[in-house]
């Protein structure tokens, strides 16, 4: 595994006070929090910052980490020393210092779901001297799953690889890769949660396993934009189709349907195909937003048609601009 320089990640000196560490964490957490940040690799950077703070905010962990010495560089191959953790008294929960914030529930021992590194797990994880007391009931885990709009419409089967640190019988830690093949029913919408009962952290001593909650993330689509169960399609139409009305084959997630464009339609106007959005009770609708596209006046014939329109039509698109 590779060494991680937690001081460098937080951008503080090794002699930084607890307050300086906290301030650095708050600043970086605000910058990289995946729910609010537009930074590239925000999620990855946020996990690094969280991991660093998890160690440096806790006096016991920080002191133990400091004992590794200051000669290590980020990325250097690393193995925990054989006497790791000796000489420290353990509070049984490790991460408790600093978690007494009103309202936020227990955040200790959630490293697996937060995706902390092997470096962290080997030094401070469940099998380490710093690991918390064994819980009978397993915790719930959370993950995000990317779903294409077509998959959301038809339903899909997806394979997830989840890494979970688990305790061996001898108390040491082992990282297991769980491959979960999950069937996702049709009609899932962006942000919706999918519960996989018993697929979270295993329970100890016969305790109940936690659940795995997947948050669905609908991937952007070339044609459609989803909003809940409704989808919107921008449909290019010719000026004569908008002006005179037309019957047009319109793509929908379930296949093309024939749609009537009323005469006198305008660019930007929205038409609705009821029940053609994502399935559900009730099913969503598909909105078709018209976009009038002008034919280019590049040929002599096209130019002649435009000239004739100019000569024969009494049309001033700027009539509203003049008093």
């Amino acid at each position: 595994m590779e060494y991680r320089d937690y001081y460098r990640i937080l951008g503080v000196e090794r002699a930084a006070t607890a307050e300086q560490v906290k301030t650095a964490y708050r600043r970086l957490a605000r910058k990289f929090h995946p729910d609010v940040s537009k930074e590239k690799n925000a999620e990855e950077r946020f996990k690094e910052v969280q991991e660093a703070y998890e160690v440096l905010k806790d006096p016991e962990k920080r002191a133990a980490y400091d004992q590794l010495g200051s000669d290590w560089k980020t990325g250097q191959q690393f193995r925990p020393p054989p006497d790791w953790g000796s000489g420290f008294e353990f509070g049984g929960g490790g991460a408790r210092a600093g978690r007494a914030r009103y309202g936020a529930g227990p955040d200790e021992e959630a490293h697996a779901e937060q995706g902390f590194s092997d470096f962290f797990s080997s030094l401070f994880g469940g099998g380490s001297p710093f690991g918390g007391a064994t819980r009978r009931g397993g915790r719930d885990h959370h993950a995000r799953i990317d779903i294409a709009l077509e998959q959301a419409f038809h339903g899909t089967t997806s394979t997830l690889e989840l890494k979970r640190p688990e305790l061996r019988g001898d108390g040491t830690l082992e990282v297991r890769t769980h491959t979960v093949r999950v069937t996702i029913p049709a009609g899932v919408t962006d942000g919706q949660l999918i519960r996989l009962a018993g697929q979270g952290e295993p329970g100890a001593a016969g305790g109940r396993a936690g659940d795995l909650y997947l948050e669905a993330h609908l991937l952007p689509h070339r044609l459609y934009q989803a909003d809940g169960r409704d989808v919107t399609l921008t449909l290019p139409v010719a000026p004569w189709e908008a002006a005179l009305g037309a019957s047009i084959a319109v793509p929908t997630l379930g296949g093309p349907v024939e749609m009537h464009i009323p005469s006198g339609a305008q660019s930007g106007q929205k038409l609705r195909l009821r029940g053609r959005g994502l399935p559900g009770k009730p099913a969503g609708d598909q909105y078709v937003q018209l976009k009038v596209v002008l034919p280019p006046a590049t040929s002599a014939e096209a130019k002649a048609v435009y000239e004739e329109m100019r000569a024969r039509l009494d049309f001033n698109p700027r009539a509203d601009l003049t008093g």
Partner: protein
Amino acid sequence: MVQVTNITTGQVLGDGEWIALTEICRVCRIDAGAVHELAELGVVSPRGKVPEEWEFPAAALRRLLLVGRLMRDLGVNASGAALAVELLEAQHALERQIHRLERLVRPEG
């Protein structure tokens, strides 16, 4: 590394599903006091006469998960998280609208 394969079917927590306060607290890692405050602030609307009987629509779970993350990770209180959630939702709605309008004005071909 040990490989384990499980095959399972997910249960979508969708419209019509109601989730008990205890599950909300467990899943979102927020304590009941904070959920009570968030309900007072109008972030979520439970059904049930007293907090012990409260149930929340599944759609509230997404909001409360976000609230929980903001409270834990950024150290904001319930009021601050509630404000952030409303602003984030408004921002996402505007981004969707901008995206739709961009499609409308983008030249074809």
